[in-house]
């Protein structure tokens, strides 16, 4: 699991691929819930918070360009406090793995395969990860270059086909009264964007970290614009009151596509995007978790822990909930704040303490 390295460009492409699934699953519903028909503007304020995160990441790696975030945390807070913080990050990544694996299979069962037990999809996903991950993160990096093009092409086609269904009265007018709801709705875009920070827990496998700011800014702008366009088209097609009440809004919006009564039922493309994106998301999170274990216990390699770790992940994803409502409520009421704490607030504290102690 320590073979090869990936470039900073591949890291950010990985982020764009893995963020595709949470954007279409989660960002549309949450933004509509908080900002109503102005939800499509909600991703825009996230630019500021994500730029702050990128600036912090860039500062952390100026002195520690060959290291990962874990080693920077140890250097700033000292080894013992640092290990406690890194362990909390391990718990966060474990929670995300269990949640996203469950989301992934719930969505497949809920949208396409209602009669197949969820255990089947969980085991299948984990088997693919068990096969791919030992080959190294560079394989995922190269996959991301291809998957990025595939997913963006799919989005492009779907978003173009959705244009005739958009009703402008569903997304306009937007008034100044909606500034606060928009800010509230932007939290979900920031929360998903914080996975950039988590990805740098595999920092020793990433080359050219000096270019974080340059590549990161273009990635964040692309991510924000993509989120805004997706939310705009979904709300324009279904209206915000519908979007906030249904679990697979993007899928339903795509089902509405009908061009000349010929191009119809192309929602299978969305299912493909879900599967690719979730696979990359889970693989990266599992790689990060094992890398954190490696750092905490000062191990030489973690390849041998992978299979057993996947058995634990299976039970966690099965036991995280018994129904989808708990899962959705957990995401809406808690996961966003947990993400913001670990992806934004702790990095800011790390940056301030590091500056005071002159460690970064």
């Amino acid at each position, binding site marked *: 699991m320590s073979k090869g390295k990936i470039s900073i460009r591949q890291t950010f492409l990985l982020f764009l691929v893995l963020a595709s699934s949470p954007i279409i699953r989660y960002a549309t519903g949450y933004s509509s819930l908080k900002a109503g028909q102005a939800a499509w503007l909600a991703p825009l304020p996230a630019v500021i918070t994500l730029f702050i995160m990128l600036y912090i990441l860039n500062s952390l790696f100026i002195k520690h360009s060959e290291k990962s975030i874990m080693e920077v945390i140890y250097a700033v807070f000292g080894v013992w406090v640092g290990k406690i913080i890194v362990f909390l990050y391990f718990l966060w990544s474990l929670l995300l793995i269990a949640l996203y694996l469950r989301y992934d299979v719930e969505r497949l069962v809920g949208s396409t395969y209602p009669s197949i037990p969820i255990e089947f999809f969980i085991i299948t996903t984990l088997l693919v990860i068990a096969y791919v991950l030992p080959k190294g993160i560079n394989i995922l990096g190269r996959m991301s270059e291809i998957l990025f093009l595939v997913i963006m092409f799919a989005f492009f086609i779907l978003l173009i086909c959705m244009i005739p269904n958009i009703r402008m009265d569903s997304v306009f007018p937007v008034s100044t009264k909606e500034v606060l709801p928009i800010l509230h709705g932007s939290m979900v875009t920031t929360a998903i964007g914080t996975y950039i920070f988590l990805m740098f827990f595999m920092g020793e496998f990433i080359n050219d970290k000096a270019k974080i700011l340059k590549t990161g800014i273009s990635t964040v702008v692309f991510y924000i614009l993509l989120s805004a366009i997706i939310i705009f088209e979904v709300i324009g097609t279904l209206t915000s009151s519908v979007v906030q009440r249904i679990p697979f809004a993007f899928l339903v919006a795509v089902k509405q596509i009908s061009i000349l009564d010929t191009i119809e039922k192309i929602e299978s493309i969305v299912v493909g995007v879900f599967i690719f994106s979730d696979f990359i998301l889970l693989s990266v999170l599992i790689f990060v978790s094992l890398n954190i274990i490696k750092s905490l216990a000062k*191990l030489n390699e*973690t390849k041998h822990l992978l299979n057993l770790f996947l058995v634990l992940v299976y039970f966690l994803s099965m*036991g995280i909930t018994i129904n989808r409502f708990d899962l959705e409520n957990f995401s809406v009421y808690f996961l966003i704040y947990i993400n913001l704490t670990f992806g934004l607030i702790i990095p800011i504290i790390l940056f301030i303490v590091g500056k005071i102690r002159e460690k970064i």
Partner: protein
Amino acid sequence: MKWLFFIVLLISYFEIKTMWNKGLKKEIVVFVFLGIITLSYGIYYLMNANTASLCRSFFNLIGFKY
């Protein structure tokens, strides 16, 4: 529950054998620790398969209702 032990033991046998041959002592300790956690949580889950919910336990813990 037998299949859980079977899977964990099978994985453990091959992995520990490889790690032992490579002289990865610390890795074996972490592996055993991870194995104990996996078995404990796995048994807990299998004994409460229809009621076990970490989300629900968390909601109850903080008194959250919806």
